[in-house]
Structures are given as structure tokens and as C-alpha cells.
């Protein structure tokens, strides 16, 4: 296992370099001039020229790239052109928020999605199966913004049960922090639960007719044991793949939900940075999320080995 890990981390390095080049090339790929956005409504030509010089936008792109890499290696990702805050500080503020939101959403998704998928596979063709599918697919089709706004109107405005929006750090007040995150993670979680449920169901159906499950049944093992121990274990491959991918998506892609519940996470940070052409922030965030994806995929690959003993023998 260890050499495998080591090799994977070594291979990941060129990926990071590749991504950093790609991310830097964005400056040229994306339309729109960052300074036009930055110079303010007046767009005074003189100020524009000065700023262009100041932020070294006149330098050739490769020179800018190497300067950036040099700083990045020393842990300096530059400052936000919009707020002058250091990018590392911005990310430091937002990473805990995003991870908390992603973990809580994933818990919702897994706790709802996997049992529902198993149940619906075991009871295939019954009313339970149909209802579980309908609920899951509505969870997928209901737009996050709709569910989010409806929850705010109902839970916060009408019943006054939970705060409508905002964020309280875990370190400040655990209970309040979980309370503010409850609705947004539920909204995100239900959408993902649908995907997980459908995959668990399909995967379980494939596995339940496989020889080893039939053998287990023939041995007279209790149905519960057969399903949970033999079938589920083998059905988990696509679920593991998806969980890793969806977790990554949660980190960078929860924009709309973050916006509705006013949660200062990564998604909102990157969208605003892209729209404002705040490239230092875009570059920093993309680099960090890329590293996150690599770690998650590595984790998924390791899980394949854990779940499938035969892979380990090879």
C-alpha cells in the first residue's frame, strides 16, 4: 500500500504543474480586462495605465507565471485585486466553512441515499421501490434555489425555528454553527442523495444475482447478512467513485446554495472572483480545489482495494 501511495503522490505533482499552467493561461483565455473591472466606474485612462503597470499586466505572460510560481512555492499566492486581502488568508477563512458544509451535506446524502437505495433494490417492483424512486428523482429535479427559499420562508420566516442565513464558525459556538448549516446542507444533501440512491439501487440489483451472493444465500445465511455483508460490499464501487467526485463538487460547486443561505464558502468566492476577473483569487482557489480532487480520487482508488480483496492479491 505504501509504495502505491508514494507513487501516486509523485504522479500528482505533474498534474499540479499542468493545472497551474492552465489556470494561469486563463488570464489570456477569458474575455474581459481585469483592469476595466478594477478601475471602477470612471475607468480613468491614466489610472488604468498606472494600475496595469503596477500589477505587471504588461509583462509577458510567462514572466508573470514564473513570478507567481516563485511566490507560490514560498506560500504566497498573492493578494486579491478586489479587496487587497492575501489569497491565502481568504482561503483560510473559507476552507473551514466549505469543509463543514460539504461534510454535513455528505452526511445527509449518505444517510438518506444508501439505505433508500438498498431498500428499493431489495424490494424491487413494490410500492416501496416506486415511492423511493419518485422521492429521489424529485430531490434531483427540485432546483436547489427553490427548496432553499421555500425552507427559509417556512422554517425561518413562518416558524422562526432556524436562522435564515449567515454563518457562525464551529470554534465560536458549535450548536449555533450546526443550526445555521442545517438547512443549506439539507438542500445540498437531498440533491446528492438522489444520485447516490439511484446508483446504490442499480449496483445492488446487479450484485444480488451474482454467484457469490447466491452461494451465500445457499449456505443459509440470514438475508440481512447476505445483503449487508456480501452484496453491499461489492456494490459499493460506483458509490465510492461518486462520493469522491461529489465531495469535490460540493467544495467548489455549491454556489447557488451558498448564495441563498449567505454562507461564505469557496463556491461563492470563486464565482465572484471569476466575474470580477480577480485572477489571483481564481488561481489560488483552483489550485487548492485541484489538490482536493487529487486527494479524493486517491482515496477512492484506495477504497477500491479495500472493498475488493481480489484486487489486493494482484
Amino acid at each position, binding site marked *: 500500500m505504501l509504495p502505491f501511495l508514494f507513487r501516486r503522490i509523485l504522479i500528482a505533482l505533474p498534474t499540479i504543474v499542468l493545472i497551474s499552467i492552465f489556470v494561469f493561461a486563463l488570464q489570456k483565455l477569458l474575455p*474581459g480586462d481585469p483592469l476595466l473591472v478594477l478601475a471602477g466606474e470612471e475607468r*480613468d485612462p491614466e489610472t488604468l495605465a498606472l494600475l496595469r503597470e503596477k500589477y505587471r499586466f504588461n509583462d509577458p505572460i510567462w514572466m508573470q507565471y514564473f513570478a507567481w510560481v516563485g511566490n507560490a512555492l514560498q506560500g504566497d499566492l498573492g493578494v486579491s485585486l478586489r479587496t487587497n486581502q492575501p489569497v491565502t488568508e481568504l482561503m483560510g477563512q473559507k476552507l473551514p466553512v466549505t469543509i463543514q458544509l460539504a461534510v454535513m451535506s455528505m452526511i445527509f446524502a449518505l444517510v438518506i441515499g444508501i439505505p433508500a437505495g438498498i431498500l428499493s433494490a431489495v424490494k424491487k417492483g413494490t410500492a416501496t421501490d416506486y415511492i423511493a424512486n419518485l422521492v429521489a428523482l424529485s430531490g434531483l429535479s427540485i432546483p436547489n434555489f427553490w427548496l432553499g427559499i421555500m425552507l427559509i420562508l417556512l422554517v425561518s420566516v413562518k416558524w*422562526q425555528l432556524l436562522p435564515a442565513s449567515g454563518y457562525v464558525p464551529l470554534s465560536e459556538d458549535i450548536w449555533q454553527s450546526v443550526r445555521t448549516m442545517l438547512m443549506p446542507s439539507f438542500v445540498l444533501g437531498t440533491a446528492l442523495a438522489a444520485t447516490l440512491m439511484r446508483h446504490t439501487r442499480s449496483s445492488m440489483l446487479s450484485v444480488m444475482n451474482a454467484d457469490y451472493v447466491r452461494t451465500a444465500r445457499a449456505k443459509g445465511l440470514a438475508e440481512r447478512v447476505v445483503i449487508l455483508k456480501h452484496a453491499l460490499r461489492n456494490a459499493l464501487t460506483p458509490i465510492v467513485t461518486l462520493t469522491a467526485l461529489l465531495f469535490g463538487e460540493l467544495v467548489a460547486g455549491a454556489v447557488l446554495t451558498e448564495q441563498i443561505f449567505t454562507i461564505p464558502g469557496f463556491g461563492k468566492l470563486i464565482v465572484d472572483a471569476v466575474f470580477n476577473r480577480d485572477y489571483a483569487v481564481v488561481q489560488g482557489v483552483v489550485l487548492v480545489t485541484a489538490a482536493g480532487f487529487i486527494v479524493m480520487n486517491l482515496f477512492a482508488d484506495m477504497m477500491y482495494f479495500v472493498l475488493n480483496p481480489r484486487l489486493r492479491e494482484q
Partner: protein
Amino acid sequence: MLNLKTAVITALLGATALTASPAFAKDLRIALQSDADVLDPDQSRTFVGRIVYASLCDKLVDITPDLEIIPQLATSWVTSDDGTSVTMQLREGVLFHDGTAFNAEAVAANIERSQTMDESRRKSELKSITSTEVTGEYEIKLNLAGPDATLLAQLADRAGMMVSPTAANAAGVDFGLNPVCSGAFSFTERVAQDKIVLTKFADYWNADEIHFDSVTFLPIPDTTVRLANLQSGDIDMLERLAATDLTQANGDDSIVVESAVSLGYQGITFNINNGEKGDNPWGNDKRLRQALSYAIDREALNQVVFEGAFAPGNQSFPSSSPWYNASLPLEGADVAKAKALLTEAGFADGIDLEVQVPNSTEPLAVMQVVQAMAAQAGINIQLTSKEFATLLADQSAGDFTASQIGWSGRVDPDGNNHSFMVEGGGLNDAKYSNPKMDELMNAARVAPTTAERKAFYDEAMVIMLDDLPRLFLYHVNWIWAYSDNMKGFTAYPDGMIRLEGVTWTE
């Protein structure tokens, strides 16, 4: 014994104070439509940033809701007869949040910073000031290159905001991370896209008028969600309620709604002569632009998209403005006239027009209504929605035929016109050029009296509406909604939230 007596009296006084003005710790929570940019008055550029400054940084002068210039840190001022200098008397006993004293030296340092810092966005606003002279501890003389009627209005905004010279020198370009001004509240904390927290400044010169212990600004971009937060009590006030949410907000007894016509406008800018794309029928023939203008029923547009809550408009000022040219009133649509003009221009069978639109709900709705109106006159509009940075870059580079864009507005009429209309103006993306227009715009800048300036703008407006490089559609209404516990709020046309005299009673 005596000590005890004083203690009792103080306690009693304290108690009465409690009932008279609410002295309990009240944090006022205000929801903004977006997050502010850097909190340095010299570097910042966003509208919401200015809302934060209204509580954080005092200016040399302020405005009344009727746009009169009134004292703030400067108590009085005199312009020399030839208009080439302004001498200001400054308020005594004012402190910056870091304890630095406010005086004429501080003003001089501030003006120098605005004019010379590389990152300053205020340079063009203070261009007319050639030098400053400290003529007394609390007296400063601003020497001007020539008469400048717009200067005081500039000093009523970011260019006139005073930051602590001590802090500014120490922090340099990073001043915005921890801004130090002399306003009613001092900076406490900022989490990007989450909140900006300000705390009451105990030594504020006008502290008696401030009745909140702290203010928290929260960016909440979604309008429906902003209103829901107000209704749930999570916030106390919000800015820019959507016009279409008015009915709902008015129906809630615990919510007060206040509004003011903004200083800016929304309209369509045509490419007259900006690059190759300027050479098209729409850029070359003003009759086509006039035809489009006649085809649009601005009042109906306002009714359909904004439930009549905004102000339909045909000039760069709203009709409520003292600068509005009343001899060119807003008229309804005249489709026959529009068709006649098209025929005259040689497009009797209709003509296409591509318009770029910012990709948000309101501009898209506006332009789809305009599209439908134009179609009745035989003008076939194609819309291309773009995110704002792309739209701006394309407009500036001349890669457009027509562009739906607005302007947030300035106190002085010059700000709504000059750099859009004169040849080589920084905002003249149409590359419109008319010597007569340049002459009028420059004359209005230096004319000594309001009446004389108005005459120049009136004349310019006639040409503007005939040439139509910018076609005006409507003026936004700033709409605030707040809890009925809040009393004493005044709506200003600049869209700011001034907390002097505002109180809170549970």
C-alpha cells in the same frame, strides 16, 4: 457619603437615559446586495463600499436630500472671486479612530494621497486641485487650475473622505485591510462575502446623534432572500428591495419601506465611431436611433418590469432633478413617427439591431420588453446576454453595436455627462464627437452660477437627445426596507444609509 450620592444619581440618570434614548447594546444589521471591495476610500469603486463609508468615514462636506452641499468636517468655505481657490474652515476637536487629530495638515495629506498614490481611483475627481496651503491649524486653502464648479460635489463623496494620515502612512496600499477614518463607527472586522463589522466610535464629534453600538453589513445577493431575512428578524434593514417585491413588503405591518429616485440612469449606448463596428447604419444615421427612441413607451416599460416603482426617463437626469430640461418632456411611444424615420433613413422594410445585455434578470426583462416594442416599428432586436466583465471589455474595445448599460449617478450634473460626451472622454465608449457638445460640457464645468450652468446643460441636452449616442430609458429608485423598530431614517438620492439621528425602540 458624597460618593454614594453621586453613584445613586448617576444610576438614576443612567436609568432615565435608558428610557429616553435606547442605550442598550444594539447591533444594527444591514443587508447589502453585494460585497464591498477594498475598504480604502482612495482605492475603492463599488456602490456598496460607499454605503459602508457612510458610517465609517466622514467627508469634508455632505449633501442634503435635495443635493445642497452642507458642512461635515469642513464647517464653511469660500471660493475666491476668480474661482481659482477655495478656502475651508475645518471642524475642531475631531479625532480619527486611532486618536490622530484631524486638522488642516491631515486634509492636505489626504488630498496628496488621493492625487499621487499609484492605486488611487480618485485622481480624475481631484484633477483641478493644483496645490494645498495650510493657512492655519483648522484652515486650508485649495488652489485650483481654474474655476471648477464640480469640486465641492466631489468632496461630498469618496474624494472628500478623510483617512488617518498616521494609519495611511503606516499601512500604505494595505490601508483597506484595516481602515482608520473619523466617522461615527470604527472598523472592527471583515470576513469577505460574509460580514463587515463596525463599532461605535466613542470620541465621534457628533456621538450624541448615534444610537447604535455597532453596525454589521451583510452581503445577501438574492433579493427574495434579503426580504425573507428581514421578515424573519435576522436583519434590521436592507437596501435595494426589488420593485416587484414592493407589494409584499408593503403588506407586512412590521416593515417600513422608503425610496428615493437615484441620481443615475439606465439606457442604451450606441457605437457611433468606435472601431470598425461603429461604421454601421445605427452608428452612422441618427434617424435610426431616434426611431428606436420613438418606438419605446418608457412609462409602459416601467409599469411592466418594475410595477411602476421606478422613474421613466429620457434624459441623463430624472425629471425630479433641478437639472432636468423641462422643455424636453418625456413622451409616450409614437410608432408612426418611428416608422416614418426608418423609411426616411431607407429602411422601410425594417432593420436589425444587435444589443448586448448584462446577464441579470432586470436588464434582460427590460430589453425583452424594448425588443417587443421595437418590433412594432419594424426594428428587429437580437439580444446577446453577457456577463458584465465581458460586456464592459467589448464595449470599451468597440466590439458592439448597441449596449444596455447604466450609470450609478453623481451629485454634480457633470458626472452624468462630461466624460461620456466629450471627445476622448474616459467613458465615451460610443466615441461620439461633436465640437459644440465639447464646448457646452466644458463651459458648464467652469460657469460660476447654477443658473448659468443649467443653461449650458439645457442646450447640451437638446443636442444629446437629437444625436442620441446614449438613449435613456429609466431611473432606478433606491428602495430600502427596514423593521418598524427603526425610526428617523431619511432616504437620500445617492442611495447611502446615514445613521445620524436614527433610533431603535423595541
